[in-house]
């Protein structure tokens, strides 16, 4: 059997969390069909990406030591098809790409990039920044990414993981174009299963009995919710450390609470930004059309939807922020109560353990021994005697 590697390198916000969750949960089924998705934990490929690209990531990177080499070794040892997937691989530099491809051995590498139109990606990326502690306004974010210099941290990261022709140049330079697969995201309003069908076809998963239940997604927020979160970040980013921010703000507030408001206005682009995104997308489509890649879907999908009603997240009135703010307070109070209960339970367990220990130690013999030890410990000579006794006891 020939060895193949399907290397899915991005882009962020293109349904990757769902795909990776399906692959992770169905590893056993996939193996039965000679497909390896090597991941001992859900974020195994994320850690491999951090390792490959030397990316410290709020402390998580300490779990990534040797993760890329470990992943590559498993891929090399697998006789059939292997799948590697994480969206931040999109950011790899040419030197890192060279190292990554070399470490996969002599397998036939197929590069997969899933891409969505800029009209939807720009607001989604701003929202992602806000969910990762940023308090940059939407207007400032747009100014930053429209700056051709790309000098800022946000601008350089955005284009490194979203500029489809550049990502494909970096990752696909050494591959025949027919081994480069560009999966476009269907336009808004398409059948919900269409994206999965495109992924399934590209990764050779058609007909496999996979559990496709959505257990892990990266839900989006409405305009007032994102605006509120950004305002909260202004207050808390400098005083809440990343390990606390992740569970309290991103998980409890953003993912579990604010994302429930499905009736809120969705974030889009202003007419001017929309025209800019469309023009840029057209230039991408023109460039990609001549490269001979295998396009799963249609390059026209990358043009994006027509302009819709734009709600500016930088000027959401206070009365629209109030309902999500109250939801946020409720959620944090419930979380606070849960943590208090956990603390109470731990105190109780500690108290019980101490009582049990004290009961065990309350024998007369123990009290006499304790008295002797305490007396001896009060003088250097006594401490020396005790130490000598303990050494002799250890030897005997």
């Amino acid at each position, binding site marked *: 059997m020939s060895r193949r590697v399907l290397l899915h390198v991005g882009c962020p916000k293109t349904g990757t969390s769902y795909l990776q969750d399906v692959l992770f949960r169905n590893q056993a089924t996939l193996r039965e069909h000679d497909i390896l998705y090597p991941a001992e934990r859900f974020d195994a490929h994320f850690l491999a990406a951090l390792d490959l690209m*030397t*990316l*410290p990531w709020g402390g998580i990177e300490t779990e990534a030591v040797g993760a890329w080499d470990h992943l590559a070794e498993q891929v090399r040892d697998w006789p059939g098809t292997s799948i590697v997937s994480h969206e931040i691989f999109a*950011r790899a*530099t040419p030197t890192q790409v060279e190292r990554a491809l070399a470490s996969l051995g002599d397998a036939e590498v197929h590069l997969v990039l899933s891409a969505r139109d800029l009209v939807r990606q720009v607001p989604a990326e701003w929202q992602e920044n806000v969910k990762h502690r940023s308090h940059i306004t939407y207007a400032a974010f747009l100014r930053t990414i429209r700056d051709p210099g790309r000098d800022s941290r946000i601008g350089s*990261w955005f284009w490194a993981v979203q500029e489809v022709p550049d990502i494909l140049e970096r990752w696909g330079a050494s591959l025949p174009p027919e081994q480069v697969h560009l999966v476009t995201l269907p336009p808004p309003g398409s059948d919900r299963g269409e994206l999965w069908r495109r992924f399934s076809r590209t990764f050779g998963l058609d007909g496999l009995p996979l559990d496709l239940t959505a257990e892990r997604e990266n839900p989006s927020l409405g305009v007032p919710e994102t605006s509120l979160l950004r305002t909260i970040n202004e207050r808390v980013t400098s005083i809440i450390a990343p390990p606390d921010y992740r569970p309290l703000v991103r998980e409890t507030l953003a993912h579990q609470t604010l994302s429930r408001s499905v009736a809120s206005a969705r974030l889009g682009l202003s007419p001017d930004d929309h025209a800019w995104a469309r023009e840029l997308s057209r230039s991408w489509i023109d460039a990609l059309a001549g490269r001979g890649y295998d396009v799963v879907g249609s390059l026209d999908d990358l043009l994006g939807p027509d302009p819709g009603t734009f709600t500016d997240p930088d000027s959401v009135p206070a009365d629209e922020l109030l309902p999500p703010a109250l939801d946020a307070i409720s959620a944090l109070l419930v979380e606070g109560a849960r943590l208090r209960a956990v603390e109470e339970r731990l105190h109780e367990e500690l108290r019980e353990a101490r009582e049990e220990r004290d009961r065990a130690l309350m024998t007369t013999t123990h009290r006499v021994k304790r008295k002797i030890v305490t007396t001896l410990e009060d003088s250097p000579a006594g*401490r020396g005697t005790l*130490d000598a006794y303990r050494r002799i006891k250890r030897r005997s």
Partner: protein
Amino acid sequence: MTAAGSTARAHGWVAHLRDGGTTPWLAWADDGGSAASVRALPGAQQLELLRRLNLAVASGAGRSGARGRDHARLADRVLTASAAGRGKADLPLLGLPASSFGPRPVDPAGVSAHELLRVASAVLADDLVELGADPVRRTWAKPWRRRFRLVGDPLVTTAAREHLLGRGRPEGGPRPFVVAVGAPLDVLLAHTWTQRCFEHGSRPWEDWLRFWRQRDQLPARVDLGDSVRRWNGRRPFVRVVTDLDQLPRHLGVRHLPEVRVPGADQAELARRIAAVVGLRAPASERPALMRTLQRRIPDSGVAPVGVPARERAWVASSAARMTRELTRAGYPVVGDLADLAPRSAPAAATGADDEQVLELAIRMIVDPAWRRTRATTREVER
């Protein structure tokens, strides 16, 4: 020049740098001849760092450093090193056939010190991991000696703890004296951040200070009262020491080693290296590796970090609060709690600039003496 010719010229420049050349990219006129390579061109950051390293070697900074094959190995390491962190991706060279996509090409000579440091810290982290941790000197424990638990000023306590371990006096044991080492609060904060840089890294100095000021809290190691309580220190078995001359006596020794206070550039470089070491070595090995770096990092003469003027009011009020808490707790004090008040004049420079840090990093890369020599501990009378 054709696209192929430009690319060959760039590969020729890479070969020139690999050979120790120092010509800037824009002054490089050679068309490369047969230097074309199928390998990806390194980014402007890696290439410029290598050129700066070559300049340092040429100027004599690396007299004991790499030559010949060693230099080629160093060059390869620099050219393939990743720029650590979420900054700019590798930047293409100005003057090459430009793609319509990707980052804009740059003149490598104009790449900022900050960007060069991202590459240099990755190279130094690899050096450190390759070097491994220095062995810890320890001898037979002498349990009849006074037992202690050291808290407070992390620079002083780390050095003292290590010294005492080497003399058979490991920290802890039953009913130890809790010795809290104090200092003027601005110094204590600066020492704590500096020590963090040599452990597992930290936020930048000013961000770190702002974090605590906005929370109106003190870091765990700085809050002496809280540190004593954490170790269940009971009054007769606690000493709050603000007079460092008397510290050895309260630890049952006559002398303690001189405490080396790293400069702002050393701490900043260590902070950056620690972040990469976290990706290169298991978490359990990082403290020993970073302690090794702390012992061996070359001196540069740059002053330690200082508290900026805008934080001084908060530092002063925090010192007053800590003094009140310790007074109320009634712990025996060796020295004077008034010494906890910030004393230093507002620092003119609160930290190192990137150029100073880069200079130190370059010196450490081209002159591997710090990796060869064993660190020595000098003992001084206190």
